[in-house]
């Protein structure tokens, strides 16, 4: 069932070898195969549509008609286009001119925010920063404890003035954390927030209030690589509701193709900055567009 795109296209093209130029029908057949592969990889339908249009245009061009092996040439084009969309301006955290640099995490429930907060803290501390973790999820049962445990593991202090489990104001915690960081010489503040749905207006407003209270240098949208077609709605809802500067993709240690990466990058134009690849604090890396391209297409 999950044939690779390379296999599929090779089958399609085997009947046309030696023909030179691809006919419009050949191009359509090819485009259909690519469409299926992208959809099986959970790339969002509207993104697939635009993507295919671009591939078709290039497939009609000289680079394919002159190729000895049109199948390989088309795959190369698809790969290039994928990397182009996924990559763009790759960058890492932008530090504030006057510390502390404030990083805020936002995303759906269970996407991996709290774990990522711990990873990011460790990663930054390893590069001789002095991060502070901030427990501003006062909603999910024991989110505060979870962050404290992670902080201990990462050897990074946790600012947790409120117990959570429904007690305390996350906006106030976020606000006061920045002063606390300044007084205690933390050059980076990482704010963990509660999971929320794009359609939850009240919770979206809370996220915007936290943002307005701390003016983050970076807002990271944390998204599970297993997400399907809803990636479009959710990515857009968070963009409208709170806004974000970059994306962190989690749970890449599984076998999900991760089409969401393409969808979100394409729809929002925001770069994917980090890849989370496991439950342990060190399972964390900068995002590599080329690896992601071959993963999506299973090449």
């Amino acid at each position, binding site marked *: 069932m999950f044939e690779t795109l390379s296999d599929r296209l090779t089958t399609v093209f085997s009947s046309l070898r030696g023909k030179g130029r691809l006919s419009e029908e050949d191009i359509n057949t090819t485009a259909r195969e690519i469409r299926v592969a992208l959809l099986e990889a959970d790339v969002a339908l509207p993104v697939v549509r635009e993507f295919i249009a671009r591939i078709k245009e290039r497939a009609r061009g000289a680079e394919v008609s002159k190729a000895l092996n049109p199948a390989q040439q088309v795959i190369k084009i698809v790969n290039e286009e994928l990397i182009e969309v996924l990559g763009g301006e790759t960058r890492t955290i932008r530090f504030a001119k006057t510390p502390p640099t404030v990083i805020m995490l936002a995303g759906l429930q269970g996407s991996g925010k709290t774990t990522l907060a711990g990873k990011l803290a460790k990663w930054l501390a390893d590069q001789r920063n002095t991060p502070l973790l901030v427990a501003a999820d006062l909603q999910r049962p024991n989110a505060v404890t979870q962050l404290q445990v992670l902080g201990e593991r990462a050897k990074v202090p946790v600012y947790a003035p409120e117990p959570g489990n429904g007690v305390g104001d996350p906006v106030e915690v976020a606000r006061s954390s920045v002063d606390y960081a300044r007084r205690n010489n933390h050059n980076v503040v990482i704010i963990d927030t509660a999971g929320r749905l794009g359609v939850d207006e009240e919770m979206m407003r809370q996220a915007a209030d936290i943002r307005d209270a701390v003016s983050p240098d970076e807002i990271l949208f944390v998204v599970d690589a297993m997400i399907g077609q809803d990636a479009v709605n959710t990515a857009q809802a968070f963009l409208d509701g709170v806004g974000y500067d970059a994306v962190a993709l989690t749970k890449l240690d599984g076998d999900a193709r991760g089409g969401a990466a393409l969808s979100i990058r394409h729809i929002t134009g925001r770069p994917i900055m980090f890849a989370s690849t496991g*439950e342990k604090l060190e399972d964390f890396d900068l995002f590599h567009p080329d690896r992601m391209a071959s993963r999506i297409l299973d090449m």
Partner: protein
Amino acid sequence: LAGDKLDEETWEEVEEILITADVGVTSATQITDALRTRVKVLGTRSADEVRALLRAELLAHINPDLDRSVRTEPHGDRPAVILMVGVNGVGKTTTAGKLARVVVGDGGSVVLGAADTFRAAAAEQLQTWGDRVGATVVRRGEGADPASVAFDAVAKGIEEGAGTVIIDTAGRLHTKTGLMDELGKVKRVVEKKAQVDEVLLVLDATTGQNGLRQARVFAEVVNVTGIVLTKMDGTAKGGIIIQVQRELGVPVKLVGLGEGPDDLALFDPEAFVDAILESS
């Protein structure tokens, strides 16, 4: 699916509705083709009729006649034992809490077993749920053997004369053989003490095509008896369960509709299908 004319666009639209609901491109094409054939045979003319036919087709795929009851009733002096399984962050612990709430609300008594000894503050999270809904929680320190915590929870259930024991397990990706073996062991060890009545696989409605792979592997390792589809209060439709049910024959039994203790419902095939068609 508005308007009266049936043309190529109509069929594209049908396929689109299904794909964006995460039904999967292959299934979406099959369902659309089947519908097309039916429309031809029946000589259907209007979009409204097509819509009704699509609804019926989807319902048939979900098989409304499957037994979707959750076995929470004790047998003799043995409590019913329920095991929660699934990948990371889908809602296992929350669902365990909500399910306990339902059983307690019906006059039963519940022991919750914190067999997630791995994730930071997992046991504390389950404890909060236990306190919230009035269930006893059996837990040990971080890093304890999950199988023996599960075993202790069942022993406690028997000792207390509880009607239901719900065991929460750590989230694990189905691709991690070591962790999947560990899960198999949890079940086998519990079975030394009592029969496992339900293995509930929790799937997050936002999950795309990977959901089928998850279900296949979990079903193989622990013989899943039911699916819980969580986070249906969002915009995701959870269409992946159509493939899961068809391939594994395991029914969706429960639906998660929020983070609160009462946000759990029985799966309603008609409501599920209507939500998919809503956007059309």
